[in-house]
């Protein structure tokens, strides 16, 4: 997806947004080697995250959102390859050695995991977990400083100071997740990835943590990428949202704008199929996400798209910036922004794509 339009759009930040980005990702790709050949889990994505900003990364399972989060931190498993640019305040993380990366983790990069129950050492008191973290990453802190820093981080997450000397088993799931977040934040990283931080938790606890994350961006300058499949969480806790489909970011922009006026057909369909309290009828997207080892040609969403055109099946759409500042990767918006692009679709390229083969129900689920 390295069309000129894409690069041009990516290079100019949306109007009205202040602050240099902490993290700039440009045309990042992540491959996994499998028996069936390479799988491009993330295939040319570009985005920026500014200080104090929360970017929500949403998509179905298998769309590459977790891979993207890990890839940015240099935590992809063996047998994978990362390409493109991940600029953390000008340093390209992709080119760093593992040793250099390890040094950045903690003071610069943080990760909040999905399962709070299994990530704390059960044999260590909370105070010891904090001491270990701070001693490893910031040498030379006094005992008193360590205690103050830890208590401050815990207090920000709503853990009473009287529980500082407790063991992990004495806390509930929600409290453990808040301790995990405090552990990541005590090092004051510039950039944090939170990978489904509330998925294993209950509705009320989830809401509490979302509130904490929302307060976080007000009180700290931490840039946060929040990976989730819950659109409601993104709408409530994120400044901006990036919607992923089959390894691509298909739409990104201000989260209020994207949820109020979704542009890309996939975003529209995803929002419609979400069951919320106001749901009166069931809606779902036909078909299933493609096999990333062998993705469809053209726009990757075209086999499931209700408004696909003939050209969508052959030509890959460029990413264009709309007047609202939202960027969308769909031929419909591309042609709206620049009518001359219609030529790329070829003759009758704008005719509706007839349902070539009926998708059987079984293929859908």
């Amino acid at each position, binding site marked *: 997806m390295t069309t000129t339009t894409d690069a041009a759009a990516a290079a100019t930040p949306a109007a009205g947004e202040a602050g240099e980005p902490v993290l700039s990702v440009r045309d990042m790709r992540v491959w996994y080697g499998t028996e069936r050949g390479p799988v491009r889990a993330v295939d040319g994505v570009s985005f920026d995250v500014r200080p104090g900003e929360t970017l929500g990364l949403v998509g*179905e399972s298998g769309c590459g959102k977790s891979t993207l989060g890990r890839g940015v931190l240099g935590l992809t498993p063996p047998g994978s390859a990362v390409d493109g640019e991940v600029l953390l305040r000008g340093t390209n993380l992709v080119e760093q050695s593992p040793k250099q990366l390890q040094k950045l983790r903690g003071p610069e990069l943080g990760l909040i995991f999905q399962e709070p129950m299994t990530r704390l050492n059960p044999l260590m008191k909370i105070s010891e977990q904090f001491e270990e973290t701070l001693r490893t990453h910031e040498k030379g802190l006094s005992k008193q400083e360590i205690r103050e820093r830890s208590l401050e981080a815990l207090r920000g997450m709503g853990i009473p100071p*009287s529980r500082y000397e407790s063991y992990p088993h004495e806390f509930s799931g929600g409290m453990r997740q808040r301790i995990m977040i405090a552990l990541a934040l005590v090092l004051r990283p510039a950039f944090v990835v939170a990978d489904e931080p509330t998925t294993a938790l*209950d509705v009320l*606890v989830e809401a509490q943590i979302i509130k904490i994350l929302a307060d976080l961006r007000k009180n700290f300058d931490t840039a946060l990428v929040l990976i989730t499949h819950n659109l409601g969480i993104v*709408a409530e806790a994120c400044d901006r949202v990036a919607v992923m489909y089959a390894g691509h970011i298909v739409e990104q922009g201000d989260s209020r704008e994207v949820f109020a006026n979704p542009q890309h057909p996939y975003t529209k369909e995803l929002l419609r199929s979400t069951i919320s309290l106001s749901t009166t009828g*069931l809606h779902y997207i036909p078909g299933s996400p493609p096999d990333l080892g062998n993705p469809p040609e053209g726009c990757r969403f075209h086999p*499931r798209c209700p408004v696909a055109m003939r050209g969508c099946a052959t030509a890959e759409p460029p990413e264009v910036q709309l007047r609202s500042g939202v960027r969308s990767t769909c031929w419909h918006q591309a042609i709206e922004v620049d009518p001359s692009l219609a030529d790329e679709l070829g003759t009758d390229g704008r005719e509706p794509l007839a349902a070539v083969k009926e998708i059987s*129900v079984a293929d859908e*689920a």
Partner: protein
Amino acid sequence: MPTKPDTDAAAIVLDKEAEVSADAETLVEIEDLEVHFGLRGNFLSRLTGRGGGAVKAVDGINLTLRKGEVLGLVGESGSGKTTLGRTLLGLNAATGGAIRYRGEDIVKYSERQMRPLRRKLQMVFQDPHASLNPAMDIRTAVGHPLIIHGLVKDDEEYEAKVVDALERVGLAPAERYLTKFPSDLSGGQKQRAVLARAIIADPELLVADEPISMLDMSVRAKILQLMLDLKRDLDLTYVYVTHDLASAKFFCDNIAIMYLGRIVEYGPTEEVFADPKHPYTKALLAAIPEPDPTKAVERELPRGEIPDAARPPLGCSFHPRCPVALASCGWEARDLRALLERRWLEMPVEEYAKEKSLFADLVALGEPELNRLAIAPGRGHTEEEVLEYLRNLREEGSAAQPREPFWSGVVAMQAEGGHVVLEFEQARDPRLRLLPETGVQVACHLYDGSGGE
């Protein structure tokens, strides 16, 4: 491919309007059902034979399930909703009460008596990836109940039934799936196969435990739709266990909100959602994230989390988190500790240290079920200082907006023999009580005429 949901959606709405009539045949009646799990306790307590108490996973539940009804059991983890669903099918042993299936109490049934009934009572589990044996192909897995219950004479009949079940759940053409293994299927397809296995023995009641929570957003609606279709075609009755209020609102005729082993609110889904009565139901509803920014509202979340079921709070289990709790809701010593910890959370470290030193032993405050509490002052402090401090707290709390409900439960507070003694109002358990006109039952002192506003 053109989307077709609009007409479908309309059809579903009509379906839902054909509500289960009140005179429909009663299928299952649950009376005072209890499922308690004994705790082993420590060595000493086992030696003295006192045991370690019990977790009351299900604690006195009454429900009636009519034929063709969809009943939602909703609650957070630890509320006992899954245990209740499993007990219905005899997968957990009840320790008290009765489950009458078509008039017969199945609680006392032996495994041998239970087995033929299992044909009629089926379960769909949460994780489709874990509920299919990875070494069984779909033909074997889906047809397994037919063999177990001896429902087929020969291979031909077996094959025909399996094919029919697969096609009913949308795995068509069935020939394509018969020889596949679970690892070849997507999550949604696996859940369809699980449903096929559940319906193949011609059941009456299906307990679905979070059937869609492990699936992707775009697939969830499809599986719910399939369940609605199956219910209509096969005349099924569902118990839908979930923590997701949004899908329960759409899917269920009646809904029971559970908290720590008890039902706190139970009634027709429409009534419960239109006008939630119990403070817990209100809190749950307020906590659901709303994807539409135009509908999002500021909300007050209840403090704290679901308590430890082995040591449940006195009185109403929700009282420590309840913003409108009354004097008799079950205030006790533990709640004072929680109150102090909440207060200290917002304080500079030095002030916190000063206040904490007033108390000799905070852990002692955390003991459950203390109706009368003697607080020892910390070293270098007198009981008068502690009393003064608590009196100030009470004044602050009563003047605060919103009012701190804890203090309403404290009936006496005085210095006595080197300690500060707090006495709490006698706790009363709220009972489920029918609110006339709405058909909703609610267990809350606000609605039983005992001093509610």
